[in-house]
């Protein structure tokens, strides 16, 4: 046992490559044999990843899913922000400038629309659950924007820790649902071209959710969605503790 642990820990990133590679091989096999290719192999792989993350989190009590299990710590590095951003930028290789220009304005509008709509929905639900304090309502609304905007806003306007935790949970639910739901609804919302992918990225905003959701739908759409999604969190952090908070305090 000791030998295994030593080797796995010392080569954690290499272990991650192997584990993820085998997971994807199994997923594509299942997609092909069980669903006849109706469900994309990467969608199954991402779902398996999320299930593993749940059990990893429950077993260790940590907050980085399966990466908290020592033997799989390399997955934390492989799936961390640095590698994610590096691969997303690489995915832009081969993107056509003309496609970006065509959807530019709609992309920008979608970022602001996305932040405001998610915020209003989250805040309305907070009110429905009986919250009457402007800081709490704003923070939960901001959590529905993304799980980064929630705590940034909450800390800026002095919300309680419990409310901030709640806002992170709301943002995580959103991110995970986008990962799973995107391939299922893609056909119905016309998500099959660069323009709608840019609008989608701007509306959803959660970089992880958009990245995984589009990868499971059609990898060619990823760079377009990611391009707008990466502006969303910044816009959310800008609007949340300022205009949106002022509006909410005006009402409550």
């Amino acid at each position: 046992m000791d030998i295994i642990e030593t080797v796995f820990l010392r080569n954690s990133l290499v272990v991650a490559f192997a584990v993820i590679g085998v997971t994807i091989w199994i997923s594509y096999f299942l997609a092909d044999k069980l669903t006849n290719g109706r469900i994309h192999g990467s969608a199954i792989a991402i779902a398996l990843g999320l299930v593993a993350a749940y059990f990893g989190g429950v077993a260790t009590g940590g907050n980085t899913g399966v990466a908290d299990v020592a033997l799989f710590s390399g997955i934390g590095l492989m799936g961390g922000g640095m590698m994610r951003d590096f691969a997303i930028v690489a995915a832009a290789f081969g993107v056509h400038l003309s496609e970006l220009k065509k959807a530019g304005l709609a992309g920008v509008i979608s970022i602001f629309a996305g932040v405001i709509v998610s915020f209003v929905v989250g805040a309305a639900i907070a009110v429905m659950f009986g919250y009457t304090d402007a800081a709490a309502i704003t923070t939960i609304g901001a959590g529905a924007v993304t799980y980064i905007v929630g705590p940034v806003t909450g800390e800026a306007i002095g919300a309680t820790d419990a409310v901030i935790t709640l806002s992170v949970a709301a943002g995580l639910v959103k991110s995970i649902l986008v990962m799973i739901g995107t391939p299922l609804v893609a056909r119905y919302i016309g998500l099959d071209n660069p323009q709608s992918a840019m609008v989608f990225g701007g509306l959803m905003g959660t970089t992880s959710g958009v990245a995984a959701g589009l990868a499971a739908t059609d990898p060619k759409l990823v760079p377009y969605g990611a391009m707008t999604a990466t502006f969303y969190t910044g816009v959310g952090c800008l609007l949340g503790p300022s205009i949106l908070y002022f509006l909410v305090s005006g009402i409550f």
Partner: protein
Amino acid sequence: MIVFGVALLSICLILGMLIGEALGVLLGVDANVGGVGIAMLFLVFASNSDALKALTQGAAGDGIKFWSAMYIPIVVAMAARQNVAAAVDGGVLALVAGVAAVVVSFALVPILSKLGNPKTPSFDSEEAS
């Protein structure tokens, strides 16, 4: 040389991140504003430029394509390190707020796509028929 492409990709990401970070400071926001998006624009410009052909074609281009192909495995690893347990533990309010935000945003995708480009829907229906 493969590493030339990898270096170009790295430089694009670092420059984009620096600009995104600076934008955050300028706007007084505690976040990187669009660093990755700006980095992607740099790479798109570089790959469309004749002057940088040596860094984006042949073996150097393969260095970029490799990381582009590693995108899905990295996303799977990213899924495996999400705090799913916390999302499940968040209770009904977090669940309802998250789900509602996603459903409403999904519904807006076709509306805003039409707004930006009126031709898109007809293109879609042609494909469907």
